[in-house]
């Protein structure tokens, strides 16, 4: 995969490098923070009425538990990342 990435023109690669450094904080983490409340509300409403009677409902319940779990971990994750800088 890395071999193919060398075929990208230098101009684009320079732009992508600049985007990458801003994306880590302004993109990935900020998207998570912005959608935090929405995901928490939807996740807790799903956990309030967990259902495992069909494949879709089972997957939805499991994803909700995972997402709520990740959201609860996020503050600690940010603490950890800010210490590592």
């Amino acid at each position, binding site marked *: 995969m890395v071999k193919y990435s060398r075929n990208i023109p230098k101009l684009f*690669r320079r732009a992508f490098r600049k985007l*990458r450094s801003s994306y880590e904080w302004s*993109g*990935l983490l900020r998207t998570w923070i912005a959608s935090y409340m929405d995901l928490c*509300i939807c996740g807790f409403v799903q956990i309030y009425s967990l259902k495992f009677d069909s494949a879709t*409902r089972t997957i*939805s319940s499991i994803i909700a538990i995972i997402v709520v779990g990740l959201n609860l971990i996020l503050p600690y994750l940010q603490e950890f990342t800010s210490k590592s800088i």
Partner: protein
Amino acid sequence: MDKKDYLSSLETLFYLTEQQVAVIETTDRITRITSTVAMSSMAPILLSGANPALIWCLLNLMQIFYYLLLINVEYPWNVKQFLGIFSMGRFQFLPNPVSWITPKLEEEAIETPYRFSQADMNSLFLLSAGETLLIWLLTLFFFLFFIWSCPTHG
């Protein structure tokens, strides 16, 4: 025969004149257009790598306004209409990627607490948070693409 007391709540009926409805609808339309323009300006700002701090603030503000609908208070019709505009902060204008995989997703809907169902939410996580998951996946895809295209920081 035993005498029993029953408690039930009745929804308040608000009377609005035609003129008031017209004013509300105009305000609704103008706010909707403004919000759409503001939200559509988000993508180029994000992709150009410019500082998107203002956009995130706008998004947070929209979400805060929309979540006022979840407070256990019966709002008048015009307030509901107004707060409903801010559903854009929840990316509800985007398609739900889960419905591409399972087209009968709506049939799987679970009974939702009253206040949440009033705010167009469902207990089924994939149905109510599918749009947010799409944003997550897109952001992750772009991030992985940037990591792949330039493996070293700099």
